[in-house]
């Protein structure tokens, strides 16, 4: 990952959100996330967008099609045109990612990925959710999955925070303290 690309993408994302201070609709937010996963999945598109040999018109056409595929509204058109005009179309993946992160940060929305060694019951899920809400406030969304590598325990991870209490983690600690001796 290029550090400069990350910094530039963050600037585009911040500029877009500053120009559009009203909250995004659920559909728009979902479209941004979809856009990010689309570009992550199809990395060759970012590469092709970088080619100066490709005409700007073709790039516009391609972006229009992607816009329709992921369901982005017209609100995003100026941003996309600006990025293509600046010859930075290869940054779209990062810009969508930064848009997601920045929007979540500004609106106090956090997505937690909760992994546990065993399937959590509804009560346990509720407990995790209420603990996080109590601790951080704002809107908390959790996705749950089973991760047998934890051996026993639970791991809560968002883009900004991490909490883990598992056997795997303890074994790691033991391993590293032994390695350092």
């Amino acid at each position, binding site marked *: *990952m*290029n*550090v400069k690309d*990350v910094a530039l993408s963050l600037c585009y994302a911040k500029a877009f959100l500053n120009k559009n201070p009203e909250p995004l609709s659920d559909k728009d937010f979902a479209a941004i996330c979809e856009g990010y996963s689309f570009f992550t999945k199809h990395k060759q598109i970012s590469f092709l967008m970088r080619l100066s040999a490709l005409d700007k018109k073709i790039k516009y056409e391609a972006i229009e099609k992607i816009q329709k595929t992921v369901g982005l509204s017209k609100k995003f058109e100026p941003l996309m045109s600006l990025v293509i005009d600046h010859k930075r179309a290869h940054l779209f993946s990062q810009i969508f990612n930064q848009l997601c992160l920045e929007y979540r940060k500004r609106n106090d929305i956090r997505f937690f990925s909760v992994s546990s060694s065993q399937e959590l019951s509804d009560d346990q899920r509720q407990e995790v959710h209420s*603990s996080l809400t109590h601790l951080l406030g704002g809107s908390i969304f959790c996705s749950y999955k089973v991760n047998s590598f934890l051996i*026993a325990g639970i791991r809560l991870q968002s883009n900004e*925070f*991490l909490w883990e*209490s*598992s056997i795997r983690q303890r074994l790691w600690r033991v391993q590293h303290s032994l390695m350092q001796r």
Partner: protein
Amino acid sequence: MDIKSGDLVSLFEKALGSEPIEHLDEIGMVIQVGDGICRVHGLENAVYSELIDFEGGNRGIILDLEESYVSIFLLYNNIPVAELEVAKRTGNVFKIPVGEKLLGRVVNAVGRPIDGKGEIESVDHWPVESFAPGVIERSPINESLETGVLAIDALVPVGKGQRELIIGNRSTGKTALALDTILHQKGKDVICIFVSIGQRQANLARIIRLLVENGAMDYTVIVSADSSESVLCQYLSPYVGCTIGEYYRSKGKDVLIVYDDLSNHAVAYREMSLLMRRPPGREAYPGDVFYLHSRLLERAGNLLNGGSLTALPIVQIQSDDITAYIPTNLISITDGQIFLDDQLFKSGIRPAVNVGLSVSRVGGAAQTKAVKKTAKTLGLELAQYRELLDFSQFGTELDRDAQQRLARGQRAVEVLKQPQFITYSFVQQALMLFILQEGFLDELELSDVHAFVVQFVSYVESVYPQVYDEILKTQNISEELLKQLFALAKEFASLFVAPE
């Protein structure tokens, strides 16, 4: 007994149940990994010089804060850091374990033992970066720290709490001089710390063996960051040594710290700065390279409430050029310098101290009275000798006075020659200088000078111990004692038989 894996899992889960979600670790993602450095996106509340834990087990220190990422230097070369790895804030700065049990041990830049003698029991953890003592806490330098090297103790004396730079070309005896000083501290209640920065491991092994063989490890701690270690470790090692020194100073002890050498330290910092893309300045060093060393050396000093930290930083120069960037910086930071001359070294004058270029700005006040009294004309005599020596090389005919000065200078140089690992106490030094000052060596052959002074010292020590003890006790040579010594020297001169 048959145990099901499910039972074990629930047993573990029960053990883990007591760990409450008190606080969440703030994390970021590694977005770029380089040579000893990585850049992490996120960690928005991270602070400069904060310690960061990586999920893969490595650790690092934040040394650059940008708007969208932070640059972290890694502590361990052998633990890989991967892109997108989670980096956790610790909320702490880098600390090292300190305690009395460090004595006699060899530790690396993170304070872990590397001498194979097992773990070190530490009593506390101290941050490696700390404020230098303020003016209120400091006491004037008024006590001598004997190096045991006659040329230094007589001409560029070092006081407790002083910072005296050892400067010279490669292979001119800089480390040997520092080691001699450490060896001389035996039985003097001075704790010694030797910081090896970016040196070869074979060199360090030789130094350790030497210290062990001479029984100096009992009061010495070695901090090592050899050339194979991460650039961060090489950068940290002098601060780690200084922190250990400060710990002992806080206990009221006198500490001597040797930084071998700060040229390597500056090079390590230059590498870090270039990796952080900071603008390079003179010789590609960053603009804050002066602060790098000034904040380290300012931590040395003599404190009012007891305890002192004396620093002997070493710096290597190229072709006797003391006007290079790092040497001039260090000369201006320290309280004097001992310049080791390549030409003198090659002509067999060892220690190769260039008296003209060496200076001690504060040590004179701390010099023992006995040595001060007997060495008062030595500097002038050597200066006159050097001038006349240049003059005599033109084949000019010299008058009798000039010839006498030349002869005296030659004998002074002979007296100041000293074999490695043999150090002299201040009484021995005072006796040697007395013999020279009073002209007892003027009539001797040059080859007999060394034997004469050494034998005279041992003659006084064994035949007239009361004289020796009087100087030792009073640290001075009274007029009466001076007369007595004069008589003793005459007596010895009549007995002296030159070795074959």
